[in-house]
């Protein structure tokens, strides 16, 4: 059933597995839609809504961070800008965040381009550090700007829906967003654009030499990713109903996204689908049964273990299982199939 995670390309056996994977995804999505429609446990609907939000953010991060290899700690910057765009437009012009979410995406993408031009020339740790610093810089601007109400934050009015209907609404909004973004990332992974990004990740100079327009590729990837993150932030503002600079630009958002990508497997479309629910559901269970701080200890240990033994995350582990499986099924051609 988990064959979707083992498959990339190959022969007849591979196609069968791919079909199983597709069926698994469709059934899983169907089950989620059904639960969203008939489920009445608001806590679970709320948790799943957050899972879909983080799937969206991690998939968006994946485009430049996973496929392109640019370790980005700035997700919170674009998320916060998106959230504040819809909140400010509501506060000053009374426009619903659901209508202005695309504008939030555009604003975040615009900032992404402005920030990306100088920063995407940097590589490795320098890029990571700069993206982190930009979050703090933007947070300070928002904290001191009058249009954003500074530290007072912005209240958005509750929607006139029952609490259950409200949870359902955001469940489906974030589920829809997660599905669309996952399909987009899947398409990127299987496109020339995706291969160009992988080439940048593996060796940027060599990619340039063979004709990949690395700068343009990176700018486009960054703009697409920040656009998606901005939209997610824009909708989040209506969900949380009170926006302040500390929450909207919390470094925890950036850290969680990187954590999910690393644990799930950066540079794969399946990685965020594994890690986001795993981390958020376990964290929620620990929070209400034991203590919150244990979450961080546990996930820190998990990241250390993954960095040491599974550098490609859960997906890397599954891929190695897949290789062993094919080798076992077909000792003569297994290697060939597995590496296809």
């Amino acid at each position, binding site marked *: 059933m988990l064959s979707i995670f083992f498959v990339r390309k190959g022969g007849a056996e591979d196609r069968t597995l791919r079909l199983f994977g597709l069926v698994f995804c469709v059934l899983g999505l169907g089950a989620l839609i059904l639960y969203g429609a008939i489920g009445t446990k608001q806590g679970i609907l709320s948790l799943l809504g957050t899972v879909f939000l983080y799937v969206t953010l991690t998939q968006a991060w994946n485009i430049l961070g996973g496929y392109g290899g640019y370790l980005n700690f700035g997700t919170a910057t674009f998320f916060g800008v998106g959230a504040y765009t819809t909140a400010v437009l509501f506060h000053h012009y009374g426009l619903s965040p659901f209508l202005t979410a695309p504008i939030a995406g555009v604003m975040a993408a615009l900032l992404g381009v402005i920030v990306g031009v100088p920063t995407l020339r940097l590589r490795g740790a320098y890029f990571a550090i700069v993206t982190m610093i930009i979050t703090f810089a933007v947070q300070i601007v928002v904290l001191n700007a009058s249009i954003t109400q500074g530290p007072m*934050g912005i209240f958005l009015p509750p929607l006139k829906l029952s*609490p259950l209907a409200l949870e359902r609404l955001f469940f489906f909004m974030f589920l829809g967003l997660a599905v669309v973004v996952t399909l987009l990332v899947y398409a990127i992974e299987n496109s020339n654009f995706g291969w160009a990004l992988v080439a940048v990740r593996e060796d940027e100079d060599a990619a340039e030499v063979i004709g990949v327009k690395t700068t343009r590729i990176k700018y486009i990837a960054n703009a697409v990713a920040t656009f998606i993150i901005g939209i997610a932030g824009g909708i989040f503002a209506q969900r949380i109903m*009170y926006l302040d600079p500390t929450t909207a630009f919390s470094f925890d958002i950036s850290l969680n996204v990187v954590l999910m990508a690393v644990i799930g497997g950066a540079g794969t479309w399946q990685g965020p689908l594994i890690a986001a629910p795993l981390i958020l559901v376990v964290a929620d269970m620990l929070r209400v049964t034991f203590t919150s701080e244990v979450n961080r200890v546990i996930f820190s240990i998990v990241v250390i273990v993954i960095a040491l033994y599974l550098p490609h995350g859960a997906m890397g582990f599954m891929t190695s299982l897949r290789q062993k499986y094919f080798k076992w099924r077909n000792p003569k051609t297994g290697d060939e199939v597995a590496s296809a």
Partner: protein
Amino acid sequence: MKSLKSAGLRAALIAAAALLTANAVVQAQEKQPILIGGTLGLTGFLSEGSADYKAVYDRWNDEVNKRGGLLGRPVKLVIYNDESTPAVAQSLYSRLLDQDKVDLLLAPFSTFVGGAVLPIVQSHNKLFFNGGFVSMAMFTNAKGSMIGTYMYQEPDYPRGLFEFIKSLPADKRPKRAAIFTYQSPFPIVVRDGYNGYGGALRFVKEAGIELVVNEQFPANTTDFNALVQKAKGANADMVLHIGQLNDSLQVARTIQQQDYKPAFFCTCGSPVTSIAAWAKLGAAAERAFSGTPAWPTQKHPGLVELSEFFKKERKQDTLPAYAIVAQTILQVIEQAVNGAGTLDQEKLREYIYKSEFKTASGNIRFQENGTPVYSQLLLQFQNGKNEVVFPAKDKTADAILP
């Protein structure tokens, strides 16, 4: 005839069994604990104050159950850790309301977290028992569904100090003020006031004091040298620090390190001089002013016992102001539920607004926005402990002024 008798007997037996079962179900329901839920920032930057709240909550939970619970049912507190994070608190309040289905709801600690939670609580039409934070805007917005036990709201935080200053002879009053404000909703309103009422800026102006420094600082600031240097350079003889716990400690330390001796130094945001960490500052803690809703010397109901509990169990010589507010909200809940004889939110609300409550903060009545009538004591930290220096009727020592 025989069959009639046997049919009648059978019917009577069935009826008796049904009655017994129904009675057992009702009894079982009645004996189910009353759930009172809330969150506290037990980790993160609000953990120190939250720990005081938790200690008071746990103590009350034990004691109320020893007294037979509420309405004859045991009481169970469900307090989650919100990690001092609004988004986490939101998710936990959804859980408390929708999954745990708590009967009564306690507010989280701090305005920062409370602001994010209030819309969720309001959407469930629950009373919000708030011993955790102040906010004039939120009380107004809640339209009486939030019952608060802070004896004064943000615009009145510095009021005790300025009433004290007004009582001093002119030559003892400060001339030049410096204000440092933490960039967060609560401190900003403490400084600016609310809808033209109160606030440190207005109090300074009304007292005829020249404002020479008015600076804000963001969260996580750890170096206050520049701010303190600016106040010192401007010859401010009064420093009002409107912030949270950790930054207040840092500012006190920096003032001492720079050998700066303003005549008046007030931690006019959080009431920090009564937390355990303040006493550990040593000389840097001395002569600092702070407000508090009540003090054990007033001997309000439960206050002396609470103070003893903190000395014995928590090894804290000073009773934190947070503990007083927490105890007060629990006393209000207990008296309201027992007095109204129900958990019905509307009936409780009705009872609360027409009753007087005997609490650790004194005898209190609630105004129509859910806040109690203003009352504040001014503390000054003298020779390693807090003394009440204002108002005169509650004074335990004279203020030390240069």
